[in-house]
């Protein structure tokens, strides 16, 4: 979950007379989990579906609703203008077809706003931008740019001075020699032409989705902004733009429209959409009996517009709330506005009778048998390592099932046997008193169609007098008591076990497992000083 850093004092400035405690008590009811708190600083986790919460400005809008300071949807006041045109060249169609943008004027920019905007940009890129692949945003100093702009493509030898640099680079140099180039260059595949935004003076404004030009760097002296979003999908690009526009308007900027044309591109509208919902559905889902006006008040607290039309409620959803797909999303907005703390849990009688799964019941009975025989239950991961599964037990790896890119070396392969894990366990208990008698039931995996999962039982006994006879008796009693089965044992060879003291276990002519004395080399490898005997069988086949 993404994290945003807030300051109580800045929030209080945005909200008015609200105490620190009121703020910290209310944040969770916007879905924001407080992760860390120190004096004025709070770090909260927000859900990726609410990119407007990536800044304190967006969070302030939500809190205003909860505290009743302001209610209803935030309306974007976008002044129409013909001054800011962007023409799209058809050459971008195959590589990054869409651009959109907005002008934000007469704002005051200080360091904390710059910090919030940069954090927002990062989060937008990572989340809804899908690491800039789907869409990416650039924020520029408007006064350094002369309109109209062109969104076009250029060759890789095109040169400009990128952000945070003092000298010119070619596109190829940026892609091959800078961190952002290496991180995001793959989005452009190997296209010889790359997207570029040029102004009327042929100055480079941006090389999306990689980097802006140094020319348009935003500083505390900047008063007017130009925001552009490029992407592979018009809707998603406009969604991202609407978040930035809403935040900038909240920060005090006046919005002015851009005029976009060419190659299936059009000017963004950033309009509210209306969704209609039946109030009975809301009450039915929530288990409440709210009146139309209660529902409307709740929706408004959640910063949406709502009007009653007969039994239906028409809800106005601002463009930055693209997390709202349909009616059920509005039900959630109602309950957030109403207050989850005001919802009283009820326990209705069950219409159904519960039942434990047959396999669970059998496994429970089996574990009780093992306890009765004096064996303690162990639990190991089914995702384990080559070392434990094969190397330490001399087993031959065949058709291993491994996971990709595991962050832990000890968890890379799905087990095909439980016994190796139990041996590993004993090696970590050599200073604990003997006898050590342990069992485990669990799933083992093998390649099939595409993967077969079966349940196994593995049992081991380690102590000075451990013998084949002992473990064979245990196996015999387990099968007899648990399943009324008698097994047949035949001499067998297996690298984990001692030659001449190993047998296959068959029931009704089918091999279900293996039993024997553990190979003394393996015991030695594990630095265990007592003999070990054990068996493993497949259950329920």
């Amino acid at each position, binding site marked *: 979950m993404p994290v945003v850093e807030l300051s109580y004092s800045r929030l209080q400035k945005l909200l008015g007379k609200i105490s620190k405690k009121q703020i910290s008590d209310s944040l969770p009811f916007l879905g924001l989990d407080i992760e860390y708190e120190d004096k004025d600083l709070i770090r909260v986790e927000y859900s990726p579906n609410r990119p407007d919460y990536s800044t304190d400005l967006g969070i302030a809008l939500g809190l205003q609703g909860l505290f009743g300071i302001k209610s209803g949807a935030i309306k974007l006041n976008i002044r129409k203008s013909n001054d800011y045109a962007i023409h799209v060249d058809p050459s971008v169609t195959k590589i990054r077809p869409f651009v959109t943008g907005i002008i934000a004027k007469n704002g005051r920019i200080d360091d904390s706003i710059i910090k919030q905007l940069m954090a927002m940009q990062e989060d937008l890129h990572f989340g809804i931008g899908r690491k800039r692949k789907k869409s990416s945003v650039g924020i520029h100093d408007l006064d350094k740019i002369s309109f109209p702009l062109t969104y076009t493509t250029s060759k890789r030898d095109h040169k400009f001075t990128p952000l945070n640099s003092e000298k010119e680079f070619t596109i190829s140099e940026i892609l091959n020699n800078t961190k952002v180039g290496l991180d995001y260059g793959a989005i452009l595949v190997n296209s010889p032409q790359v997207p570029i935004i040029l102004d009327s003076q042929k100055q480079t404004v941006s090389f999306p989705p990689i980097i802006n030009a140094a020319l348009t760097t935003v500083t505390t002296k900047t008063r007017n902004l130009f925001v552009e979003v490029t992407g592979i*999908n018009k809707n998603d690009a406009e969604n991202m733009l609407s978040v930035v526009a809403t935040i900038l308007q909240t920060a005090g900027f006046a919005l002015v429209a851009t005029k976009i044309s060419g190659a299936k591109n059009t000017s963004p509208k950033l309009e509210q959409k209306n969704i209609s919902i039946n109030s009975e559905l809301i009450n*039915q889902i929530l288990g409440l009996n709210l009146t139309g006006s209660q529902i409307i008040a709740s929706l408004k607290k959640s910063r949406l517009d709502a009007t009653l039309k007969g039994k239906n409620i028409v809800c106005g959803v601002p463009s930055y709330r693209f997390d709202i797909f349909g009616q059920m999303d509005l039900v959630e907005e109602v309950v957030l506005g109403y207050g989850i703390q005001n919802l009283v849990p009820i*326990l*209705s009688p069950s219409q159904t009778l519960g039942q434990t799964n047959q396999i669970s019941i059998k496994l429970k009975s089996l*574990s009780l048998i093992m306890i009765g025989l004096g064996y*303690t239950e162990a639990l190991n991961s089914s995702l384990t390592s080559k070392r434990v599964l094969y190397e330490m037990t001399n087993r031959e790896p065949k058709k291993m099932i491994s996971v990709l890119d595991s962050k832990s070396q000890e968890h890379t392969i799905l087990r095909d046997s439980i016994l190796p894990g139990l041996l590993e366990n004993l090696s970590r208990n050599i200073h*604990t008193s003997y006898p050590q008698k342990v069992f485990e039931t669990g799933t083992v995996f093998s390649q099939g169609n*595409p993967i077969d999962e079966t349940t196994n039982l593995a049992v081991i006994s380690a102590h000075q007098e451990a013998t084949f006879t002992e473990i064979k008796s245990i196996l015999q009693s387990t099968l007899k008591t648990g399943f009324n089965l008698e097994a047949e044992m035949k001499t067998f060879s297996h690298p984990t076990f001692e030659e001449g003291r190993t047998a296959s276990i068959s029931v009704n002519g089918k091999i279900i497992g293996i039993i024997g004395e553990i190979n003394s080399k393996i015991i030695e490898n594990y630095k265990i000083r007592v003999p070990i005997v054990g068996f493993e069988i497949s259950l329920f086949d």
Partner: protein
Amino acid sequence: MSQVLHEIEKKIITSLKVNPKQTPEQLEKSTSLSTDQIRRGMEWLKLKELAIVSESQSITLSLGKNGLESFHKGLPERRLIDLLKNESKKLQHLQKELGSVFGPAIGLARKNNWIDTSEDEITLKIYPSELPGEKTLKQIGENKIPKNEVDIADLSSIMKRPDFIIEDIIKTREISLTENAESIEITAGSSNAINVESKVPDVFVARTHPLKDTIDEIREIFVTLGFTEIIGNMTQPSFWNFDALFTPQDHPARELQDTFYLDGLSAKKIGTSEQIRKISESHKKNWRYYWDINEARKMVLRTHTTCVTIKHLAENKPDEARFFSLGRVFRNEKVSYKHLVEFNQIEGVVVGKNATLRDLMGIQREFYRRIGITKIKFWPTFFPYTEPSLQTMVYNDRLEKWVELFGMGIFRPEVTKPLGITKPVLAWGGGIERIAMLKYGLDDVREFYSNNLSWLRSVTKCQ
């Protein structure tokens, strides 16, 4: 005072009541117990403060080789004067008669002026009736007697003669009863009593794993709340783990760094053609991207058990039902005290035309109540496949803070509709290890899978 006494103790006490002060040897005789039994009995009684043991020292006297000869034949000087009693005798004659004792005897007789010597003729002047030492010799004879019984003056006259008197120093232990013991009534019965207060060795009980106990407890709670358990595979096609749950194919949660993909393994059959078509349509319409069936075929280790539930719902389309699924789930995480790559999750659903969010909250509250958690609250949260979505926070007294437990919500229509599920589905779920950690007071979740026998053998079972 009531005391359980061992048979040995009883015999010793009984004997001492008759004969208040006895040595161990005397007790052996009076009780017919063995030396070892007497020794142990004395120790027990001493510990229980029922008897005191006093130690004393005594000296006994017996005769040495020369002493014994004198006892039988008389002292050398006695034998000399006896020879001279009736007549004078020649020196040579006496020498021959007395042998080696002639010298000392004649010396003593001269010193005491009992005889006269002229030429080689010896004549007795006085015949003493009793000589010093004779009384003592007679008293000791062939026995051992305590030194304090003899006349010390008489003894000293022969004490220094070589090999005459042997002195033995003897230490004696004597046992007697304390006042406490005097009041004890020795009765029959409780004859097999042992020392019940002493320490005994530990026996380790074979037992189920503590985490399994928690799992069983949780399973039972949901069964009694009317839920039926369903079981499904841990390896799943992405289709059921993600696509069916409205998680777009480019969603960050689906990346390698969060989810375990199985190297080179794809499922041929992932669902019915209608299921695949409708789910792909829902993704295209709502998320606007190219939905790739090959992405949906990729096998993953399930990241939640919800995939099992949704598949079951899609196959059965019940109008009224309560299911739960319980088992291992996987996340590609760095293992730490609070994260495992593999852990247990319970996840359940209520299907019904009248199922409401308040019912969902009520089931959670009832579950927590049954595992002993009463301080709970609900917060909003986000899951891609539920709307509204809530999470439970429970207050933990030991940690003195609110801890996040189960998440819950109502399945989105974008999830249920393509699969033909028409009634509302309340869903909830969460990790079991976290509950078990609270129960067993653990701060490191890895403890559950380390199989440390000392820990497994020591966890309190009935809690």
